[in-house]
C-alpha cells in the first residue's frame, strides 16, 4: 500500500498558486527527500499532506485515509521547520516527549509511570540520556531535533515528516542526524518524508527524491535527479551538487578535530 498518494493536488495561498497538479506517491517503508529552491512550495506540500493546509483541488491519501483521519489515527510524526521556543519556556526534554502521548491518552488523563519510563528510554535511544530534565529551550538545535524525534516516535507513528531538519545543525551534526533517520527507517519500518534545500546531502540517504518548484519536476531514484536538465528546470540554472557519502573526508577531519 502507498503511504502517501496525492492526486492532481493544487494549493492556492492568498490568491497565489503555490502547488500545481502534484501527483506523488510513496510506498510504505521508503525514505523520500523533497528538494527545491526557496519558495518552491516544499513546506506547503508537507502541510497539505498532513492536513494543515486544505488543497484548492485534488486529494491527499495517507495509507488510504484522509489527512484528518490519519491525524486522529496517530499516523503522523511531524517535525516543523523551526520551533521558536523561548529559553525559559517551562517544558523539559522529558515533558516535550510526553506531549506526544497526550492525544492518545485523551482529555482528563495524564501520562503514567510506564509512559514516563518509555519517554526516558526513547530519549536515551536518541543519545539524550542525562538531559531529560533540561529545559527544551535551553538545548542546542541538534539536541532539540533529537527530542522532537523522540516526541514523534513515542506515539509509534507510521509516517515521519520532517521539514528542513538540518537547519541550525553543523555539518557533522547533520551527517549524524541523517544516519539516525536511516537507522530509524529500518528499525521501526518507518516511511519518512524529509524536505531539504541540501540536494547533495539528501541524495546520499534517501530511497526516492522529488524535485519541486510549484510543479513536480522529477520523482524517482536519487541519482536520476542529478541529471543536469532536472537541476536546470528546478533551479533555473546549472549548479554543482556537493555529494555526501558515508566516507566524507571533511567530516572525518572535523570529527577528529572535535575529539582533540
Amino acid at each position, binding site marked *: 500500500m502507498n503511504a502517501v498518494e496525492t492526486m492532481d493536488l493544487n494549493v492556492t495561498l492568498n490568491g497565489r498558486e503555490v502547488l500545481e497538479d502534484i501527483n506523488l506517491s510513496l510506498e510504505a517503508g521508503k525514505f523520500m527527500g523533497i528538494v527545491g529552491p526557496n519558495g518552491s512550495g516544499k513546506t506547503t506540500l508537507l502541510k497539505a499532506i*498532513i*492536513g*494543515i493546509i486544505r488543497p484548492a483541488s485534488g486529494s491527499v491519501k495517507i495509507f488510504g485515509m484522509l489527512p484528518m483521519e490519519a*491525524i*486522529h489515527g*496517530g499516523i*503522523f510524526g*511531524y517535525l*516543523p521547520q523551526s*520551533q521558536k*521556543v523561548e529559553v*525559559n*519556556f*517551562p*517544558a*523539559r526534554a522529558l*515533558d*516535550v516527549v510526553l*506531549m*506526544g502521548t*497526550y*492525544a*492518545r491518552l485523551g*482529555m*482528563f488523563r*495524564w501520562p503514567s509511570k510506564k509512559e514516563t519510563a518509555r519517554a526516558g528510554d526513547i530519549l536515551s535511544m536518541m543519545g539524550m540520556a542525562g538531559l531529560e530534565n533540561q*529545559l*527544551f529551550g535551553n538545548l542546542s538545535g541538534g539536541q532539540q531535533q533529537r527530542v522532537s524525534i523522540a*516526541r514523534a516516535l513515542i*506515539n509509534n507513528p507510521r509516517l515521519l515528516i520532517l521539514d528542513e531538519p538540518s537547519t541550525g545543525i553543523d555539518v557533522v551534526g547533520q551527517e549524524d542526524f541523517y544516519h539516525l533517520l536511516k537507522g530509524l527507517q529500518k528499525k521501526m519500518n518507518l516511511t519518512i518524508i524529509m524536505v531539504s534545500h541540501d540536494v547533495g546531502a539528501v541524495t546520499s540517504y534517501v530511497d526516492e527524491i522529488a524535485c519541486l518548484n510549484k510543479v513536480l519536476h522529477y520523482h524517482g531514484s536519487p541519482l536520476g535527479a542529478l541529471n543536469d536538465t532536472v537541476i536546470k528546470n528546478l533551479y533555473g540554472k546549472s549548479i554543482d551538487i556537493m555529494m555526501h557519502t558515508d566516507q566524507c573526508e571533511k567530516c572525518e577531519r572535523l570529527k577528529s578535530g572535535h575529539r582533540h
Partner: protein
Amino acid sequence: MDTGTSWLVDIFSYEFMQRAMLTGALLALFSGIISVFIVLRRVSFLGSGISHAAFGGVSIGFLLGVNPLITALIYSILVAFGIERISTKGKLAEDTAIGVFFSSSMAVGIVLVGLSSSYNVDLFGYLFGSILAITGEDARIAAWVTIFLSVVILLIMKELHFITFNEELAFVSGIKVRLIKSVFLLAMAIAIVVGIKLVGIILISALLVIPGASAQLLTRRFYRMVVASCLIALFSAVSGVIISYRFNLAPGGTIVLVLSLIFFISFFFKTNR
C-alpha cells in the same frame, strides 16, 4: 484577648468580610491558573482589551437595570471571540483588532453611562474594584463560575501546555486545538469579568499577568509554575484585603501592590541566584 491582634479576629467575624475573603480567594486562585497561560501565550494585551471592553458591558447593565456582572460577562465573551475571529481570518493583526474593540467598547460605556439618568456610585466599584461591597448574588455567581472553570481548565491543562508549546505540533498529533483554545478564551474572558470585582477594570491586568510572571521566575517546571502562580495570587488577595481593612486603604490597589512586591522579590531572587 490580646488587643494587638483582635482586629484580625474582628475581620473574620463580619459577614461582608467573610464573603469578600472567600470570593477574593476563589477569584485569585482562578486568575492564578489563567495567568500562567496568559504569560506563556503572551496574550496580556488581549486581557487588557477584554477588561476594558467589559466596561461597555457594565454600562449596558446599568442602562437596562440588569445586573452589570451578567451583561459584562456576555459582552466580554462576544468581544473575546470577535477579536479572535477577526485575527485568525488574517484580515487584521490581533493587536489592531484588540485596539479597535478596546476603545470602541470604552466609548460605548462612556456614552451609555452619560445617558443613565441617575449618577451611579457603583460605577467606581467596577473601575477600581469593590470586593468589600460585593453582594451575596455577585459572590455566588463569581464562586460557582470560578469553581466550575478552574476544574475545566485543570482537566485540559496538559493539552493547553502542548498547544502553548507549539500549536501546529499539537494539531498534527491529534489534539483538538480549536476546542481547547475556545475553552481557554472563554475562561479568560470570564476570569477578567469576575476579577473586575476584586481589583477593578483598571488594575485587572495585574492579576492576569503578575502571578504567572512571578511564578515563571521562581520555577522551571510547568506544574510547579501553576501551583506557585495560584499561591501568589491567593496570598496577595487575602493579605491585600486584610491590609486594606486594617489601614483603611483601597482593597484593589492594595492587592495589586502586594502582587507587585512579590514580583520584584522574585525578580531579585532570580537575578541573584
